[in-house]
């Protein structure tokens, strides 16, 4: 309708990425319910449409076209790099709709080619850089870095950046190896790590296959001190809990605060309330997909509010300009530092290490929230 703000959200509810896509959908739905019941965006209700992409680019684009055919769309959320790539040329030229997405792909943080797209955290490349920075900090030049990544496109994203960063710090990269997303047997990869004898292993682009067993094998080889580090999606709390034999000391990176109970801020309270209403024993750990969606929704809301407050029309061009100008924005606890949008991304991250806190597994911060550069 005319006075609503129309959001079209395209996530994978059923395909290979549905483990992340379903909580994304849930996150948007929860956010919009909450926001609408609190008066909407400056009095305008959000109309949310969720579409299943099945993680196939063509299906994703088809659902997007369908959404466009259904009437005015003010904001689009796309689940994958490919989808954003596919819709952007036309969007840049004609529709000009503000866009967000589940993709943290490095190439999307690009004002020239993706002026309407904003990354709701730090890109994968930047995440890996932060981790390499951490290696430099904690081990200095003696560190030897190995990188293991999956062959899906996400897994290959950012590897070059990580290597460059290591070189800058004077850290030797002793091994880069690519695996499939799942493998029958991972011994050969563990063997390669043994052969290379790294002090740190950077793992990227997996869900929960391949790397846990590699860690176990590397430990079997007697390399107890080698530190394993993973990018953001490898920090899913309920998964780490299943891997407690290797969780100790696992280093990861947060682009959101993942525990809504231990983080201060009104947004985190809202999220806690929503989860506690569903499950009284809620641990505080929120699904990453949920947080991703929530963060995107907040960013979009922020842009709409800025434009409306300035009395301008909520066109994509205005919204994108507003989004790009966000400065020192308090996200209510979602991120541990005020957000200033630079280079089309929030660009903040914090290195954590898994360990026991009061007898419970938790990600313990080892650095402050850092701005990427």
């Amino acid at each position, binding site marked *: 309708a005319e006075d609503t703000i129309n959001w079209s959200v395209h996530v994978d509810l059923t395909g290979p990425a549905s483990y992340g896509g*379903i909580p994304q959908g849930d996150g948007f739905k929860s956010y919009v319910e909450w926001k609408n019941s609190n008066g909407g965006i400056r009095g305008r209700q959000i109309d949310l449409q969720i579409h299943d992409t099945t993680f196939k680019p063509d299906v994703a684009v088809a659902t997007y076209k369908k959404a466009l055919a259904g009437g005015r769309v003010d904001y689009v959320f796309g689940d994958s790099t490919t989808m954003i790539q596919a819709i952007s040329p036309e969007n840049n030229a004609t529709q000009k709709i503000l866009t967000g997405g589940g993709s943290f792909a490095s190439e999307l943080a690009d004002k020239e080619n993706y002026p309407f797209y904003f990354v709701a955290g730090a890109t994968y490349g930047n995440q890996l850089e932060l981790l390499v920075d951490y290696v430099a900090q904690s081990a200095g030049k003696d560190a030897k870095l190995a990188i293991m990544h999956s062959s899906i496109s996400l897994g290959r994203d950012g590897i070059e950046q990580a290597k460059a960063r290591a070189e800058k710090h004077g850290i030797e990269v002793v091994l880069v190896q690519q695996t499939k997303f*799942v493998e029958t047997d991972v011994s050969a990869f563990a*063997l*390669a790590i043994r*052969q290379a004898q790294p002090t740190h292993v950077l793992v990227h682009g997996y869900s*929960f*296959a391949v790397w846990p067993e590699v860690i176990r094998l590397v430990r079997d080889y007697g390399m107890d001190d080698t530190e394993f580090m993973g990018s953001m999606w490898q920090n899913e709390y309920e*998964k780490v809990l*299943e*891997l407690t034999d290797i969780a100790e000391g696992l280093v990861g990176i947060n682009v959101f605060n993942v525990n809504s109970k231990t983080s201060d801020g009104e947004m985190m309270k809202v999220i806690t309330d929503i989860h506690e209403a569903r499950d009284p024993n809620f641990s505080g750990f929120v699904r990453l997909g949920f947080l991703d969606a929530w963060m995107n929704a907040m960013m979009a809301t922020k842009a709409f509010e800025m434009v409306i407050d300035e009395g301008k029309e909520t066109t994509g061009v205005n919204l994108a300009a507003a989004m790009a100008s966000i400065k020192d924005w308090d996200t209510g606890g979602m991120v541990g530092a005020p957000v200033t949008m630079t280079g089309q991304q929030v660009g903040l991250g914090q290195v954590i290490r898994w360990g026991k806190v009061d007898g419970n597994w938790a990600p313990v911060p080892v650095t402050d929230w850092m701005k990427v550069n």
Partner: protein
Amino acid sequence: MAYFLEYSAVGIAAGGVYALIALGIVVIFKSSQTFNFAAGEMMTMSAYMFYTAAVTFSFGIYLGLIAALVGSVLVALVIERFALRPMAGRPYIAIVMVTFGIGSIMRGIMAMIWGANELQIPAILARDPVWIGELFIPGKTARAFAIAVIIVLSLITFLRYSRAGVALRAAAADQITAYSMGIDVRKIVAFAWGIAAITGGISGILMANVNSLTPHLGVVALNVLSVVILGGMNSIGGVLVAGLIIGWLEAVTGLFLGTEFREITPYILVLLVLLFRPTGLFGGKEVERI
């Protein structure tokens, strides 16, 4: 050099599971000229059933294993009875597509029952490493290899020394004629599917033990296709050798070329072999006269 040997050993050991998966495909092919593209899904489903039995219903490992295999066989029999039996005598292209369709059905059903989550299944293989002289072989890999090879070898022996091998081939070659010679084709084909369900089930569970259990477990079956072809579609012994070759090749490819090439070297090898032997390393020549 020491590393080369170690890589080779580990690779060959990994190849055991390939051979086991491939065996299921070949047995079905031998019985009914059906190339089963749903093998990956069948494997995955077995692993899920194992999870449900062993973890959800707390049957424990052994009972869970039995329950999972029984379940797998039942699923296989249903597939054979309702999807493939009606296709008897149709062009192989159509039959291949049916198995694609079955794969799709199974993926959907698995997603409905078990969701998209990764699950951790109870460890069934001991971890302590096996030493061959100086060579260190990871425990799970070595044990998975032993299990796989024992199963493959016993099946080879069974098919060679019983009449079952001949019956399988007769059924595949010409159903009507096989019937006319007293061979119960349906039983034979069902038997083959049962065998495939068991070998596939075991390999699925072995794999889930190495990886966690995910809906994508079955994608390795695609790699296994290269094993099947390399061995020669209808050669059970060939499958064992080819499985080990491909396992080895992947490991040393990683060592020499870079791990990303692991994805295609099996296929390049297969292409090369087909150039010189159009029916694989051990496949019999096609018999044709005009």
